[in-house]
């Protein structure tokens, strides 16, 4: 049967047949780089268009509808404009850090992608600490934001970057604790183990109460970690013009913008992997006709379907809820989400030890 696993395996064996193992490895690395950059370009185009359309429909507007049918080429035209624009560097900035910051943000977003399983056997690096690697590396993104804010030599940028730092450091905690719930239920940090454990039902169904609480808290924390409204303290258009990327223009601004949407995809892909089974089709129990029908849909469709559903939920949050003030934001995390997720972790421990999940 056709599958991405067979394609990657045949490419790998063909390359090893033609070249020495070192050169084959290098060629594979280049192929992976091209695929990752292609995925990011695709995400940038699709998610920006999706965001604009979702927001406009929720606000009873039409959204982009002039460039191409239903405005589908709008984001391509915007990208073209951003490429043509001058990459302006203001006076009195720390030039090295100023030019480095967008790349830090972008590279972090790309490195996080390594342990993700897009389909069965279609994974860059099935490391045994997969989910730990993801949480560890995704926290590094804030360094890029802090670098951008600090090097811009601008009050607004610095304020936005500091807020972003406080926000991400806070919300990493509850995001990590909710991820621990699933790690506890699975008993493994490896992404492929987590997904295979959901072959007879996704964790959100099998783990019942603690998994549902963890899912809700994870979605809230993920929204905050990506610096999106209602937690857009780092950008805060109404107070800080654009926060940490006030001084950026052209393609450097586009990299920040792209990294934001790539991060949205990444947190949603983590959520889909942990709670909704990653590429695993919707299964209930074992070996019945329902599972057989669901297996006909390829894993990559399931994975992207789930990830895009969660992205839609996050966009839905953004265009429904009013913004939080910085003190309300920290109150929400330290007084509500963190205690609840700690209790939830305790509950999940009890359930995992006694085996009360399905």
């Amino acid at each position: 049967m056709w599958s991405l696993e067979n394609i990657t395996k045949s490419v790998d064996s063909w390359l090893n047949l033609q070249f020495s193992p070192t050169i084959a490895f290098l060629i594979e690395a280049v192929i992976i780089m091209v695929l990752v950059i292609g995925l990011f370009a695709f995400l940038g185009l699709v998610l920006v268009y999706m965001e604009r359309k979702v927001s406009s429909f929720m606000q009873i507007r039409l959204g982009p509808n002039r460039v191409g049918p239903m405005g589908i080429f709008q984001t391509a035209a915007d990208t073209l404009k951003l490429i043509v624009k001058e990459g302006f560097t203001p006076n009195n900035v720390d030039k090295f850090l100023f030019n480095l910051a967008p790349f830090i943000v972008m590279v972090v977003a790309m490195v996080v992608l390594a342990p993700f399983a897009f389909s069965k056997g279609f994974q860059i690096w099935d490391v045994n600490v997969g989910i730990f690697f993801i949480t560890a590396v995704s926290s590094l993104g804030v360094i890029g934001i802090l670098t951008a804010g600090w090097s811009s030599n601008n009050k607004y940028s610095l304020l936005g970057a500091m807020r972003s730092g406080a926000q991400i450091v806070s919300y990493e905690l509850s995001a990590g604790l909710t991820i621990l719930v699933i790690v506890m239920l699975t008993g493994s940090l490896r992404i492929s183990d987590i997904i295979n454990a959901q072959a007879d039902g996704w964790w959100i169904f099998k783990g019942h109460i603690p998994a549902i609480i963890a899912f809700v808290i994870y979605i809230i924390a993920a929204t905050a970690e990506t610096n999106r409204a209602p937690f857009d303290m780092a950008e805060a258009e109404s107070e800080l013009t654009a926060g940490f990327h006030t001084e950026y223009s052209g393609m450097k601004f586009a990299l920040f913008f792209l990294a934001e949407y790539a991060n949205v995809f990444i947190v949603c892909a983590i959520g889909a992997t942990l709670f909704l089974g990653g590429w695993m089709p919707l299964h209930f129990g074992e070996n019945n006709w329902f599972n057989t029908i669901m297996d006909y849909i390829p894993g990559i469709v399931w994975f992207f379907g789930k990830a895009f559903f969660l992205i839609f939920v996050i966009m839905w949050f953004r265009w429904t809820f009013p913004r939080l003030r910085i003190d309300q934001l920290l109150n929400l995390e330290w007084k509500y989400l963190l205690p609840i997720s700690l209790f939830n972790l305790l509950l999940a421990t009890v359930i995992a030890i006694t085996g009360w999940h399905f």
Partner: protein
Amino acid sequence: MFVTQYIKDVFGAIKSLGIGMRRTLWYFVRPKEIITQQYPDNKDTLVLAERFRGEVVMPHDENNEHACTGCTACELACPNGSIKIVTKFDITPEGKRKKAIDQFVYRLDMCTMCNMCVVACPSDAIIMANDFEHSVYDRTRLTKILNKPGSKVRDGIE
């Protein structure tokens, strides 16, 4: 109790956020509710509210007659001097001299569409029209003569 209040807060927050999300989803799945007017495309079918105030016009009937007696009530009512009435004297068939308007000068570039001239007019000679596409290449074209050439006041209006 503190703990019960805490739990109430959490569930109350989730409930109120759910109400908001239901409302936005309601609009998201109903594209027919979209109120955006695709303006230059729907120029032919565009319907404006009757109360919309675009500019002052003086309606003329089929005999090229209007209802303006030249009383200058509108000129006095206008807060920013957009109206200037030039009067003349007609000779009636009985040989009497009668006051009438020569030119009703209306300066659209100064008008704020406050509607006070229309309210002040005793004979309803001027009304507010719906037309809103006023851009011209020369601002002198915004000074308009509202009474048509050769028009006269309708009989029976004093």
